[in-house]
């Protein structure tokens, strides 16, 4: 049953989104202009990031372009980056997973509860990963095998898991977490805590997998047309389920890192993390491999958003300005990307 938005491929006549690899061989006269446009399209977001950085550095020379501020901005995005990379998997293969924020909060709560009640960190991690795997499999089986819609199923899971987070901690904020848990997330390596490094490594792995391996292509294929992928002999069900499972495993482990990173677990935070990863992924899909969910773009997008918000805050803008910036950045970026794609397609 699919009572919901059926995202549609444009018709042959109206498809204009230019993928990275598809320059229609144009007449040479137009080709220089087209190259500029293509570069603008592909690296526009990156340029926006650099521009924003430079602009705020000039405007706020003493507070913005400092090592400490840059590190603070990067650190603050670590958890969201992990969630965003997790959710690229199902998104690439055409499914939503709204449950990750709930799952992360539930596993953070579980980790805190277990480790403050004598369970060793290793065992806690195993339990958490098992919970993650179970969640991913439930999502995957319901959505893939039964054909239930992914948006609504994972919305339900999100709500249920947020509730379970409260159950795990008996409605309390859990503090005084053991030091090995804190170390796991905070150990500094070359000036950045492990949680940041784990995010970067995931970005790199995802980049390799998405750009360079058949697996990454398969996901795109499945996301593009499930039926065609099936007819082409792909094991669509297994691949989709494995995306849900991997996504949930990453989200579950992110819960452990969240507990260690923040140093306490408040079971009420799930909804804070619901939308930001999606904003990052969607914004990121407007750059690098334009029109396709990708990990480097996601990284750039999240850093652009945090640079904008931090700069505005340091500049003394009213707090609400950052919400407006956040929203407007998203809308404008996808709009410009779309316009660039249209010009590229020679319309």
């Amino acid at each position, binding site marked *: 049953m*699919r009572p919901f938005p059926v995202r549609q*491929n*444009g*018709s*042959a*006549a109206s*498809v204009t*989104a230019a*993928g990275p*690899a*598809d*320059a*229609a*061989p144009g007449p040479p006269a137009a080709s220089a202009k087209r190259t500029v446009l293509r570069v603008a399209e592909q690296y526009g977001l990156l340029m926006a990031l650099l521009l924003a950085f430079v602009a705020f550095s000039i405007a706020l020379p003493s507070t913005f372009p400092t090592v400490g501020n840059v590190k603070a901005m990067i650190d603050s995005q670590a958890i969201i980056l992990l969630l965003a990379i997790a959710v690229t998997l199902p998104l690439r293969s055409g499914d939503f997973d709204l449950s990750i924020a709930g799952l992360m909060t539930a596993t953070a709560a579980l980790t805190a509860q277990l480790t403050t009640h004598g369970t060793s960190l290793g065992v806690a991690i195993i339990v958490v990963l098992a919970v993650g795997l179970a969640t991913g499999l439930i999502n995957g089986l319901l959505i893939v095998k039964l054909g239930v819609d992914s948006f609504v199923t994972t919305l339900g899971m999100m709500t249920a898991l947020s509730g379970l987070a409260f159950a795990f901690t008996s409605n309390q904020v859990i503090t005084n977490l053991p030091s090995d848990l804190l170390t796991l997330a905070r150990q500094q390596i070359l000036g950045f805590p492990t949680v940041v490094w784990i995010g970067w490594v995931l970005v790199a792995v995802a980049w*390799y*997998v998405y750009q*360079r*391996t*058949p*697996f990454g*292509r*398969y996901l*795109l*294929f499945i996301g*593009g*047309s499930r*039926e*065609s*992928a*099936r*007819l*082409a*002999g*792909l*094991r669509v069900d297994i691949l989709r389920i494995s995306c849900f499972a991997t996504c949930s495993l990453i989200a579950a482990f992110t819960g452990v890192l969240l507990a260690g990173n923040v140093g306490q677990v408040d079971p009420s935070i799930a909804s804070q993390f619901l939308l930001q990863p999606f904003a990052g992924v969607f914004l990121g899909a407007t750059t690098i491999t334009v*029109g396709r969910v990708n990990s480097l773009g996601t990284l750039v997008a999240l850093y652009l958003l945090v640079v904008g918000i931090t700069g505005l805050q340091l500049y003394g803008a009213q707090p609400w300005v950052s919400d407006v910036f956040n929203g407007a950045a998203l809308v404008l970026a996808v709009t410009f990307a779309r316009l660039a794609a249209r010009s590229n397609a020679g319309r």
Partner: protein
Amino acid sequence: MTEAPTGLALTGVSKHFGGLTALDSVDFSVRAGEIHALLGQNGSGKSTLVKIISGFHSPDPGARLELWDRQVDLPLRAAHEHGIAVIHQDLGLVEGMTVLENMGVTSSYGAALLGPISRRRERRRCRELLDQMGLAIETDTMVASLSPAARAGVAIARARRVLEEHTERFTFILDEPTVYLSVEESGRVMRLMRAVADDGSAVVFISHRLQEVMAVADRITVLRDGRVADTFQAREGNQRRIISAMLGRSLDQFYPDRLNAPPAEPVLRVTDLAGQRLAGVSFNASPGEIIGFAGLVGMGHEEIPYLIGGVDRATVGQVKLGGVDLLPLRLKERIERGVTLVPGNRQRDGAWPAATAQENITLPKLSLGSAWHPLRPSAERRDASSLMKLFGVRPPVPRLKVAQFSGGNQQKIVLAKWMSTSPAVLLLDEPTQGIDAGAKFEILQRISDAAESRAVVLIFSGDYEQLANVCGRVLVLRHGRVTAELTGDEITEPAIAQLAQGDTQDRPDS
């Protein structure tokens, strides 16, 4: 040939969809080196049988499948690992991805699941395959921008790649691969199939074009209502035998009588019409005329119905209907003036597969009427039901979803949907695609009826035999321009083919 090993043997295959019996204890086998044609009326169960072989459907219990004399479990998993390559009616290409990406997907892009893909090697491989097919398609083109015929070419090239990776012991199944192709292109596909079979593979193919079947098949199996009606060596039978097995009766006439339209003032005047590839085409058409358009893939004639119909925007030109220029008009306004387009891509443009036949058939009428005038469900049902009967849709049950009909019956639904609007200009893009020989007569009769009631009928088709038999005039296009016009006795299948082909050296570019 009788000693050749059996590549695939199905026994006792039945399949029910709800209460409907799609297949009833079918036995079916193919030998190595053999091209086996699977024939039957629309809805007789051919695609269902193929989908069981490819593992898409699971058959009812009791069916057995042997591949190269080894029993395998049903439903079949990972058919390609068993050396089975299938090209379905729906082709299995993703529009938003490039040709390169589409062509690698069945071969794991020549890499391990998480191993690095070599782009250069991939590109070279695809280039080779496309060249072998004579397709001048850029590997980085989006599939969305290809014509249906070019897509079929890509799908075949892709399946061929899989074939070549499993040189021996291979079963190659094509479900109506030539449905979008012109005669010469489908000839190329036939030669390809022959080469594959000669290499020792087993080949199954489905087609409603009996001529090509007789030309290439070694053995023929005919299904009727989900049972095997006849199976025989091709050289022991002829088209008549096929048809009587298919229909359970003989067919003495394949095409309706040609109309002799009385000469009349042209009502449709097309001047210098140009689009993406169409480079300036002019012609006039009078009421009651049936005009055919032919050309190779990418020659521009495919665009004409969509430009006149208002789906795509013309770059220059004029299309006058009774003195009014259509080009500035919106699609709906053209429909209101009787411009009726039966699109070629029925999955995307023709119907919404998840809605019922009734909802699809009545949509054009609804969209012309007021958005707020209350629906009349029972009148709708009556209309839909009678139209479905008129166009021979089986089963004629309006409340079934379009997706639940066989391919040919879906096409009849699309025709019923559009031809019910008493058109002034009827634009038909491959109108009889996937329709069986028996039903084709009926459909062409309906088209002829439309012309008789003073419609201008334009048929765009690669089925030159059909063009030769129903059209009063045929325009042949090359490189976006009309290069020949045939009338009267000049219109023969070989003549159209030769003019369309032109100089063999200059291939269409894409």
